[in-house]
């Protein structure tokens, strides 16, 4: 059988189809290998949620991403927030890089909270968006006075008037920070908040796969306690949790698109070798 060289439009069509199908229907996928950063990510949440010193503290869900990196960051958010909710920990949504983060984070949290029977204001809160220019001073101010520094939540209610916030007034009342980001925004938490209270706060990072390379050293220095690398990390986390969700479906897209590329490369090479043989035959 002769394998023709494919037109680029055919390649594009194949890719679009391969990526779309797993988003529409469930496609089987073998479980991924669990990498060390994911493992310690999971273990950190386990520790924080069971340790009597930290289990009643607040979890800050910092959503610094926009629609551009939705596939990676939103899948991480869904996977981890499900876990936080199952541990009955109280959380606050926050964003300081992109206003879209507030909306994407808020709507995802709403959906997950509704399912778990979480009540807004009692079990979770959305602090809303603050502009990136003033974030350093804001975080510094938040260390001693969350209510004063932040002022109101996303709906304009004073934080001091929100029932759950009565227990959470300063950095020492925060037990865990999870940062979902398309850039290196986690450094603000590390520099200005993580170690500013009386005890260091465990910090977890969910970067896009491109940003992850720069963050590995922070795992080794102990500034980060765990990391989910892009969609792949989210998929690993869902596998650990045994709760397949969006990340697992999107990972199927990811896996099959890689498979497609490898198949295409093989086909291209076989076609090239066939052509070469034919040409040699012709010259003989």
């Amino acid at each position, binding site marked *: 059988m002769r394998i023709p060289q494919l037109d680029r439009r055919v390649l594009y069509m194949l890719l679009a189809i391969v990526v779309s199908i797993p988003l529409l229907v469930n496609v089987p996928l073998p479980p991924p290998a669990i990498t060390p950063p994911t493992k310690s990510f999971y273990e950190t949440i386990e520790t924080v949620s069971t340790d009597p010193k930290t289990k009643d503290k607040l979890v800050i869900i910092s959503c610094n991403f926009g629609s551009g990196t939705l596939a990676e960051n939103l899948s991480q958010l869904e996977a981890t927030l499900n876990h936080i909710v199952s541990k009955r920990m109280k959380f606050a949504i926050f964003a300081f890089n992109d206003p879209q983060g507030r909306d994407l984070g808020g709507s995802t949290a709403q959906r997950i909270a509704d399912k778990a029977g979480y009540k807004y204001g009692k079990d979770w809160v959305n602090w809303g968006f603050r502009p990136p220019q003033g974030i350093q001073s804001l975080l510094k101010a938040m260390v001693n006075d969350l209510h004063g520094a932040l002022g109101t939540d996303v709906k304009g209610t004073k934080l001091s008037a929100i029932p759950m916030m009565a227990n959470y007034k300063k950095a020492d009342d925060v037990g865990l920070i999870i940062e979902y980001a398309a850039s290196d925004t986690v450094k603000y938490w590390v520099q200005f908040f993580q170690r500013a209270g009386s005890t260091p706060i465990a910090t977890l990072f969910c970067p896009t796969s491109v940003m992850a390379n720069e963050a590995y050293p922070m795992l080794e220095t102990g500034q980060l306690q765990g990391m989910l690398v*892009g969609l792949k990390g989210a998929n690993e986390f869902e596998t650990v949790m045994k709760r397949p969700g969006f990340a697992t479906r999107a990972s199927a897209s990811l896996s099959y698109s890689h498979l497609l590329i490898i198949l295409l490369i093989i086909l291209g090479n076989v076609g090239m070798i066939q052509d070469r043989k034919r040409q040699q035959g012709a010259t003989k």
Partner: protein
Amino acid sequence: MKEETVKLIVILLGVASTLGIYSILYKENKVFRFFEHMYLGLAAGYSISAAWNDILRPQWWTLMMIEGRWWMLFAIPAAMMFYMIYSKQNSWMSRLIFGLFLGATAGQTFQSFAADYFPKFRTAASKAVMDLPEVNQPGAYGLTPYSAALNNVLFMVILASVMTYFFFSFEQKGKVIPSVSKFGRYTLMVAFGALFGSTIMARMSLLIGRMYFLIHDFVQVQLLHMQ
């Protein structure tokens, strides 16, 4: 307009622009050209707004007119020098202001060189073959002292051979140097292949995000009213 309507229009505009841009994958066409020009226009408008909202207003106008730092006005003649490129006789003045930028960027190179490269020199110069701290580090499971030592020797070999490939001041002749530099070139190819392979995941994730937008936000939610 109701919030729902605004949301719907935003999604419809998103769908139209997504499909319009993707149309170049088939071939360059009028729809793509329309969105391309619209994109360039929007981007120009956005740059102007960002220059005012994020830089000129807070860092110049407010400082000058509200905080009273009147000498900020001198930014105007300085900036005007850029525009002197359009004058026949005084176009040299645009080079003068450019010289300021050029000098500043050159002067900062000392610091950026030290900040970027000294840690790298240190990493390279402290690769050990004995007494390996890496073995006990997190994420180093499966690393034995022998394999770690071997890896560190390999590190130096690769570093040296790739650097040799980039020496220009002598002809690469003789027995040793050409083969070292050839090995350097081959390891470069391994590295580039790896970079290519590892970037695919990030790019595919972006496409998945866009497809999810088209399929979920548009078709499933807006057209079929699924949740």
